């Protein structure tokens, strides 16, 4: 089913997705959108895992299981992150990341 598509295509796609996520992480101010950027990054990594698995080691399942675990980690991360965001919102009445700078000098 994947014939005719070189592995590089998947990797380039994942790279673009990854750096889009990085860009979002660096520029967005809302904590929730930052969380979304992180999800993008995780997804691109998943794509990489699966592409490598399929194209280079098709007889094994490591890539797939790693992706599976990454999805599980992402889910738990999202849950905790959202709990933290809600907590921050209660304390600071904002989820703008630039206003939450209590940890400075």
């Amino acid at each position, binding site marked *: 089913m994947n014939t005719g598509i070189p592995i590089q295509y998947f990797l380039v796609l994942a790279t673009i997705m990854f750096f889009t996520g*990085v860009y979002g*992480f*660096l*520029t967005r101010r809302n904590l929730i959108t930052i969380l979304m950027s992180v999800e993008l990054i995780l997804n691109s990594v998943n794509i990489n895992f699966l592409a490598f698995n399929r194209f280079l080691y098709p007889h094994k399942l490591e890539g797939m299981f790693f992706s599976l675990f990454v999805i599980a980690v992402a889910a738990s991360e999202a849950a905790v992150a959202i709990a933290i965001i809600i907590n921050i919102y209660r304390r600071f009445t904002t989820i703008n*990341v*630039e206003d*939450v*700078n*209590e*940890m*400075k*000098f």
Partner: protein
Amino acid sequence: MINFSYTIWIPLLPFLLFILLGLAGHKLKPKLSGLFGTGGLAIITILSYITAYKYFFTSEKIEGAYQKISAFNITWLQLTDKLHIDLGVLLDPISVMMLVVITTVSLMVHIYSLGYMKGEKGFERFFAFLSLFSFSMLGLVLATNIFQMYIFWELVGVSSFLLIGFYYQKPSAVRASKKAFIVTRFADLGFLIGILILSFNTKTFDFITLTDPAGSAIAQGGGIAFMGLSVMTWSMIFVFMGGVGKSAMFPFHIWLPDAMEGPTPVSALIHAATMVVAGVYLVARMFPIYAFSAPAALEVVAYVGAFSSLFAAVIACTQTDIKRVLAYSTISQIGYMMLALGVSGYGGHEGLGYMASMFHLFTHAMFKALLFLGAGAIIHAVHTNHMTEMGGLRKYLPITHMTFLIACLTIAGIPPLSGFFSKDEILAAAFHNNKLLFAVEYIVAGLTAFYMFRLYFSIFWGKETHYHHTPHEAPATMTIPLIVLAIGSVFTGFIPFNELVTSDGKVFETEIELIVAIPSVLIGLLGIGIAFVMYRKESEISDKLAAIFKYTYKWAYNKFYMDELYLFVTKKIIFRYISEPVAWFDRHIVDGTMNAIASVTQSVSLRIKGFQSGQLQKYAFVFVTGAIMLAILFIYLWK
């Protein structure tokens, strides 16, 4: 051989008392702690008397000479097998004599203080310090080796410091205590250098080895010469420097008059009878070395003593503070002792000066302590130190008056009081050895009689001043020591010192030399007579004399500007040209380096703390950029 090992308790007991009173004194009632101190001292006084009796009358003599007995000795610091510092008790005629002097005077002062210091704040502290002093002084005189002596030498310095500064709320007392400590400490530097040179050359600290006339230490004398004098001489001059400081000889005498800021009993004990004669004791202790190896140093001793005695006597004639007059008198009398040592030889009749010096030390301790305690009683009665504000006190203070008169007659050298005998021996010794020094001492004898009776007449006769309240006689605790010491002053002159305390421990014959004795009594009487004329009644002679010798008087009144000279040397020269550049170097170079390091660190920190902005995205940006940089580095540049 009699067992003397119990003598270790003589210094230890006051030490234990010091610890007790120092640590628990504030919990005891003041009276109780005073009684503790006095009681402890009474015990060691009795012990000392027993020791003296046993030593002088029952211990065996070898070839008719008293032996040096090491009654107790422990090795304290074993540095190498040759170099070790011991602590112990050495008994010989002078140390036993000093035991008697110290314990007697100290006991009297303790009893006296019970009355004098009554109701003072820090009563128990006072007694604790007195005990510390007694411990240190006894340890000093009983020292078996020169290093132990140095340790206790410093300890008496400390206790003197503590007691001079007893009224520590008074700025003048604080100043005086600092002055005393610094001046004596400076002199002790010389002492230490002397000890080091001496022990380097003789390879021993031990007094018995050092002072054995036939021993190796003295045989080694001479040796290498430095600047025309042998090393031995130099070391003994340095050792003598320590004695000069402690005994307040010229030029280190400046601390003693100021030390009178301390309580009067302290002045009597430390600054008249015991501690200040430590210098004399030191020279006497090392006497064989002086006599055999360093005659030049001994000459220095003689001239320093003679000059100090004249110098101080002249100043004493002009002072009006009675305690200061007594302080200068003390300097003058110690000068006598030094001079006597300086003109003495070793052994037999040659050692007359040595004997005379010790004799005078003994009698002087009695009558000078008596004078100070009497002065204390007077001050106690009229609440002033200045004799210009006193007069006609003989009616109010009969006992003090009588004892003071006895002391004045004693110091003036009127027979048959003790001062006559001891002073006569000194003058005789000087007469036989050095006519110039004899002449100086002869004049000083007259001056002494004059200023003492100037003091006496101004206080007890003269015009009666108006007092705020009628002066009253001191309580019994104060008058009893006065009476005891007065008895001592009268009768100690009959102690046959020529049989007990001599340079080589052997008896020698001595008699009163009329050629010396009669003129000295005469000049003493002359001094008294002049004082009688000038101060018996209100008289203008003294003012006229002062006007005639205006400049001399002014110089003497201002103590020949010695304090100012010291201040000039220290402040204008040492501080300005040495200390200030050093301080500048310290503040600007040393501190500056440190400050520069600190300020550079601070400014760098101020700059870089901006990175810790709390902005999550900045951190992430830096992280991403760094990761990319590293990737570039590793992939393309680091092949």
